[in-house]
């Protein structure tokens, strides 16, 4: 139910983003989706790849500060209120959302949003009880493959 996400620390300066990306590119590792959070001085690049262990190893070898975080990929109905129904469950369970980002591709008319929670286990428990589909890693990559990624 949990997806491994890699985060790396970047200084906020021209060219900082290209270094880790070209490293992954050269190793043939495809970034499925990513988000970049930034402050005036530094940024955090977060992304999901299939071969996360290989990517982590590679980035560490090249001197990046890497962190692995467990996040959730949640199926969201593509209609008004689709996101609200999920957020309501989380609010009730008192789980805090640290940040989110999404996959661009849809599957069966549904969107996929990645959530970073302060308490991932509690979030999964509450969402599952409410009948909301939290996608497993194997399911995620199966869908991405079917979508031609």
């Amino acid at each position, binding site marked *: 139910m949990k997806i491994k996400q890699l*985060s790396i*620390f*970047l*200084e906020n300066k021209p060219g900082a983003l290209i270094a880790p990306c070209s490293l992954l590119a050269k190793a043939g590792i495809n970034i499925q989706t990513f988000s970049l959070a930034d402050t005036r001085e*530094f940024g*955090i690049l977060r992304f999901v790849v299939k071969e996360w262990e290989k990517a982590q190893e590679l980035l560490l070898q090249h*001197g990046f*500060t890497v*962190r692995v975080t467990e996040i959730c990929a949640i199926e969201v109905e593509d209609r008004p209120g689709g996101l609200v129904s999920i957020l309501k469950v989380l609010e009730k369970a008192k789980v805090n959302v*640290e940040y989110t980002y999404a996959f661009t591709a849809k599957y069966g008319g549904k969107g996929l949003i990645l959530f970073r929670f302060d308490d991932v286990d509690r979030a999964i428990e509450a969402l599952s009880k409410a009948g909301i589909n939290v996608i497993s890693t194997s399911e995620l990559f199966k869908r991405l493959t079917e979508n031609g990624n």
Partner: protein
Amino acid sequence: MKKNNASIPVHTASAMDFLPLSKLQELQLSRLKWTVQRAYDKVALFRDRMDKLGFVPNDLKSIDDIKNLPFTTKTDLRDNYPFGLFASPLEEIVRFHASSGTTGKPIVVAYTKEDIQDWATAILRSFAACGLHAGDIVQNAYGYGLFTGGLGAHYGAEALGAAVIPISGGNTERQIMIMKDFGVTAISCTPSYFVHIIDTAKDLGVDLRQLPLRAGVFGAEPWTEDMRHRIESESGIKAYDIYGLSEIMGPGIAMECVYQAGPHIFEDMFYPEVINPESGEVLPEGSEGELVLTTLCKRAMPMIRYRTRDITALTSQQCRCGRTLRRLKRINRRSDDMMIIRGVNVYPSQIEEALLKVEGTLPHYLIIIDRVKGLDVMEVQVEVTPEVFSDTIGAMEQLQAKISHFIAATVGIRPEVKLVAPKTIKRSEGKAKRVIDKRKL
């Protein structure tokens, strides 16, 4: 893998460490008389200064009379560059060393054959004090060359009978390979370089705790007790503080014993005093002040009451090792390193202490001082380690605020804390450069 050496008998040269106090004081006085007479007879600067004060070497009746002798400073060495303070003719000199000399001319020091032997003995006693002995494999990663660290430690380790690897500083990956392949048991280098070795070993997947390495003889720059704990927990070795400065001899003036309770001064060779750096008055034992040293055996270049600019205190409290030699309080600041920021005295070691309080921050940092619109600003760049890195901006900003808070609480000035990527701060293979002062004063 780590062997304990508590039961190893002391080296015969270490007998001098345990002289009965009365014997030691007797020896100090006779050697001081010899040194002062020699300095007076052979070095114009010392003779002129003593004459000016109306002091004649015969006035030395007790060791306390040393307080009537004039001080010598680093400026005196500069002013007499290169050979002006030599007490031996060139034919008797067998070695030169010189300071790195970041500004202007370097400081030159010289040694006779006997001086070199004495120095080797001082370092032999240093290595022996922390439990090293023949059979140990010593990786000497101090820089070889004009700097006293490399050759000083080399001769001392050889005199002890240890097997020395004269690897010098740099090429860290090779250092780690050799450390592993040769089964190195002790290393000598600057503490900041060893931290770099720890980091590099981690990157290479080498666990230093699994190697036979058990002791580090660290010196040539100020470091803190916290840094010692970090080095010891991350590498599984014992980290010992060795003290010295080229003007007096080089490393080996004082060294910690296995109890790590502050370096014991080899007082039969170097006489210590602690003074008030402003008034020059000798301070009672235990008071913190500037360390002043007088050589008791040196021939080529005797030093009388040399002001080291190192801030410390002396203690004669009995150490568990039984040495009669007094100990120095850990020197983690030099008056040389002092920065004056907005009128406040700040030492890099204080910044280091504050950084170490923030869990997981290894001391890779750089202090940049600048003056913006007439006001001093201090920026502290800190490398982000995996231990403190978080994927949320909130947590990272909290880290920044925490570091800034701890520094402000320690030094009284709130710095601009800048988090930087790993390995972006230049590593030093010798003495670490911690401060860049951009102010045009």
